[in-house]
């Protein structure tokens, strides 16, 4: 009479096992969820006050250094029109909150806003339970309208530039004529000078300059030869310089003689002054001496003339006597 398929004898045990396992898993999961939600944890309350709590939802984390240290429990609008975000901080996480801690609410482009806490000095006294703190707020999406406005004006500028008859179009047309000329026979020169004739003249001028440079090269070669010869003549063996050296040696000797003669003149003049009586002798001696001095001076003069002859560049033939 029983239309259902037959079940084995111990089906009640197996069914009980299955249902029992299900119950254990389900209760275990509920306990795990309660543990996860901090049901078995001692917490301390914290209230954050902000002018806009948009996007914050219950269960959001308060993170410190990237680690969650608390969770949003309730969001309410206070009597002063400011949003109050009530959090519960497990005692384990509360040690990171100090009286000097700063709380921020950062809103990215997507995802829920992130509540963060920064504690610069962990030596400060801990935040007492039930504290009420201000939240600093940063919102990316609020920046977007400003950005769009800026972007729009920039795009309008670009549109004006690129519109037909715009300055960019005119510039591009000029560039095109320039490149067209560059492609012509006279190329870049034609483009720079404007006409083909001028360009040809420049090319001819360059050719002539080249020829001139070639002949200048010949001239400079000849000059080189001449300079070489002059060098030999002046500084070579038996050249002008050698003669000059000898003449200077002779001049030195002559000058030495002149100096001796003059010393003798001084002595004689002193004798003359001292011995005025022997005037006749003195004058005879003076006549001989004068003849010697004249001879010396003539030698010097001859020497100077010889030097001047051998040293053709000397112009000043005057010689000063001491």
């Amino acid at each position: 009479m029983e239309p259902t398929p037959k079940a084995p004898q111990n089906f009640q045990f197996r069914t009980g096992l299955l249902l029992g396992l299900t119950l254990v898993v389900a209760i275990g999961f509920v306990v795990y969820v309660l543990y996860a939600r901090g049901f078995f944890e001692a917490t301390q309350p914290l209230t954050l006050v902000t002018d806009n709590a948009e996007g914050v939802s219950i269960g959001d984390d308060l993170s410190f250094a990237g680690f969650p240290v608390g969770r949003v429990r309730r969001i309410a609008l206070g009597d002063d029109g400011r949003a109050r975000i009530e959090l519960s901080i497990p005692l384990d996480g509360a040690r990171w909150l100090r009286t000097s801690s700063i709380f921020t609410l950062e809103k990215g482009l997507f995802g829920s806003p992130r509540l963060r806490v920064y504690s610069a000095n962990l030596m400060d006294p801990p935040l007492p339970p039930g504290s009420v703190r201000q939240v600093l707020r940063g919102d990316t999406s609020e920046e977007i309208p400003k950005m769009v406005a800026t972007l729009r004006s920039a795009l309008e500028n670009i549109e004006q530039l690129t519109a037909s008859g715009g300055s960019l179009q005119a510039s591009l047309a000029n560039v095109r004529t320039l490149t067209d000329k560059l492609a012509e026979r006279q190329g870049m020169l034609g483009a720079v000078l404007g006409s083909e004739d001028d360009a040809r003249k420049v090319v001819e001028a360059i050719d002539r300059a080249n020829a001139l440079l070639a002949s200048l090269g010949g001239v400079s070669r000849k000059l080189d030869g001449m300079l070489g010869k002059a060098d030999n003549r002046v500084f070579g063996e038996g050249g002008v310089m050698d003669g000059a050296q000898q003449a200077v040696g002779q001049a030195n000797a002559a000058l030495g003689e002149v100096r001796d003669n003059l010393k003798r003149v001084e002595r004689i003049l002193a004798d003359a002054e001292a011995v005025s009586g022997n005037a006749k002798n003195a004058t005879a001696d003076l006549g001989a001496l004068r003849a010697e001095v004249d001879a010396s001076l003539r030698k010097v003069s001859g020497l100077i003339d010889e030097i001047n002859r051998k040293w053709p560049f000397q112009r000043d033939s005057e010689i000063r006597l001491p």
Partner: protein
Amino acid sequence: MSTARAFVGWFRAWGHVGRFALAAFAAAFARSTYTPITRAAALQQVYLTAWQPLPGFVLFSTLLSLVVIQVTITAARGFGLAGYALELVFRVLVLELVPFVTALMVALRSGSAINTEVALMHASGELAAMRDARVDPMQREFVPRLVAAALSVLSLTVLSCAIALALAYLVMYGFSPWGFPEYTRTIASVFSLPILAGFLLKGAAFGVVVAAVPISAGLEATRDLKSAPIAVMGGMVRLVLALALIEIVSVAVKYA
């Protein structure tokens, strides 16, 4: 004319389902229903509905979960959204996909069987004979199936969701224990108590519908045996529709 009649018939069928579900509910919550015979029948039905297909179902659900989790986590990592991957897996796979697929599997396997069985019992006059013998078919046949289907769907759902949760941890963190705090935090943010209650309610609704719609459809069969296939067909369509409707309502309540 026939369109209008079909429309009215469609409504009458749903009305029939509603009336039957209410009556079955009343009977299921009445203490007097649970005689030892009813209890034994219910346990037997649980055995047939949940225990028998258990190995194959666990294998299937594990494979499905693994694929969905792998795809979700890999894609989320690719987009740099790995922090949201677990939450996505929990919300899509554990809370929606696995319960729905479980209900569909039970509906395909046991719902169709119940539907055919009741239609045949009705057509063969077995139910009328029961009533003549002062045995309430509701108590003897229908309530055990209803309760068993609800328990089976809940049981299979809980087990396959547990597997999916474990797989999500393994795929995300491997065999390392250091992902546990983050995993726990994600669990805490997804599974609030209302969500858990909704999950239980949805599972129970799936379970009840899996039995109630086929039974009421089976009762629509006439004494003619040829009416049985038509009753089964209508019942199965209504069953899948009802399951989809429950899923849609559940998602709408949660996210709308």
